[in-house]
């Protein structure tokens, strides 16, 4: 009886774990946050940038990889600079945060 109960508990825990993993993956499809840029580091080839932003509400830093041409151009000519507040959408792929939307909250 004890064994059967243990087995049921183990299966329940595994199922819960699987469910929550699936949940994380789907929730991670697109995450939205409004955050302030702390640093922008352009790759040497200029084809990507690593940006660290501070989410004040959650009091945590987020590091995202940006590789869309328009945003990279804005980094290069300083239309977007450190200190700017950003509306950011990103996806988690291979353990990295990939930006899918990167816009300033203010300005033309």
């Amino acid at each position, binding site marked *: 009886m004890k064994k059967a109960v243990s087995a049921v508990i183990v299966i329940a825990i595994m199922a819960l774990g699987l469910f929550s993993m699936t949940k994380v993956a789907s929730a991670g499809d697109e995450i*939205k946050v*409004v955050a302030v840029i702390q640093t922008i580091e352009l790759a040497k080839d200029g084809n990507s940038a690593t940006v660290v932003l501070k989410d004040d*509400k959650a009091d945590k830093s987020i590091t995202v990889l940006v590789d869309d041409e328009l945003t990279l151009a804005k980094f290069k*000519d*300083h*239309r977007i*600079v450190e*200190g*700017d*507040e950003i*509306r950011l959408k990103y996806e988690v792929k291979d353990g990295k945060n990939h930006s899918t939307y990167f*816009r*300033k*909250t*203010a*300005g*033309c």
Partner: protein
Amino acid sequence: MKKSLTGLFIGAALLAISTNGMAQVDHADMITGPFKSGTDVTKKCLECHEKEAGDFIKTSHWRWKGPTNGHVRGYEKSKVEYGKTNMLNAFCVTVEGGPNQEARGHCGECHPGYVWNQKNFDFADKTKVDCLVCHAQAGDYGRENEQISDFTDLKKAAVSVSVPTIKNCGACHYSGGGDDGVKHGDLDSTLNRADKSLDVHMASKEKGGLGFNCQTCHKTKDHNISGASTMMATYSGRVFCEDCHSGGNAPHQKSRNKAILNNHLKSVACQTCHIPHFARAKATRTGWDWSTATSDIKVPPQEGRVAFAKGKGTWTWAKNVVPTYMWYDGTITRYMKGDKIKDPSKPVIMMSPYGSINEKSAKIYPFKYFTGKQPMDATYKYLSIFQQYKGLWDTLNWQKSLEDGAKGSGLPYSGKYEFASTISYIGQDHMIAPKEDALTCGDCHMGATRIDWKALGYKGDPMLIGGGRSNKSSIAHTVKPADSNFIQENWVEKHSH
């Protein structure tokens, strides 16, 4: 006894609510949502706040115009109301561009309403008031592309309403001119995280400041927020340092140089010594040359900020800037729509403080000196109105954007344009430094170059040659309507009826 105690508690609670307004009111139980639009939220707000909305729609924040109340020289008797809606500046120039004033769609993102993107907008419709832009503290409230951002959680925003914080006001006022810190010089988003060295009033208490909200100084009654700008004609009462720093809080009481410092107050505004530099944390724009727009030049960034855009022209930037000092009696001279330019080879003074050494009501104040170059009608000799948003920025076609600007504004375009140089003097009132960083004698006197004494009408440094305002010369630095290189024909006044 119990009853009287309960009464006392209720009384105290009511007093707290009445003195602190909505800051003390938790709206969570009153607002259930969900909301599909901003107007839906406003309708909910109106169930309790009909009067507040009624008050708000009378203000210049809502109407983008108002009475000048003697603020603009030459317009003292004017009955026409002026404001962002019908004035020009040296930044994005105007909100009137486009056959149906489509430029408002972008400029109007900072209008607290849903959504002023064309010429016609029902200013009497209270359900169009955007309560959240000033009052929401959560839910990532914001508008972009003429609608509420898809980052916004409307219910969360609606539940979070409180008295406005500096971040609420800053959402628009930090970004005047089109980006963070562009226009003002003394207002940018660094104030949201300021420490005491940046602003003794607005820095949080945790960072050594006083934790002021904007309305601590900009006293507000019935949603009418006090304040005056050297850029705007509309006037809702000035804010003075002396509103707080007087009587028992009078300045310099503990200073060993109290008498000397207080003697300066007859001629020198508090801001002059207590804002030694502006744009101390982030560069501000100091020039905008529209004449290079549509060209293919390359301009390297300045002070870490973009210095050219093909649709907008060339920009200059500066950080930690020494102000320009001028006499100011609280009134301004202002270029208005349709004013004719006397000599296009000389700069047009877009906005300038009025005052001189000869006027006892004037004091020396700090200003940001801003240079512009913007289109002028080559035949009619006035500054042109053009459509930038959904116009020049996309088409790169000056001729078309000027034609469409004329259609929306009603200011005729002859078909020929050139570029006129402009100068603006923009008042500096924020980013008050700690007293230990204020200017000292040697910053202005004894050979220092910070202040051009002769330009201010003195014969020289009054500390060296003696005298002060009694030792006045005939030179006055003030810009009067007569010498501001434009003829005020009150075009709007003549044609707006």
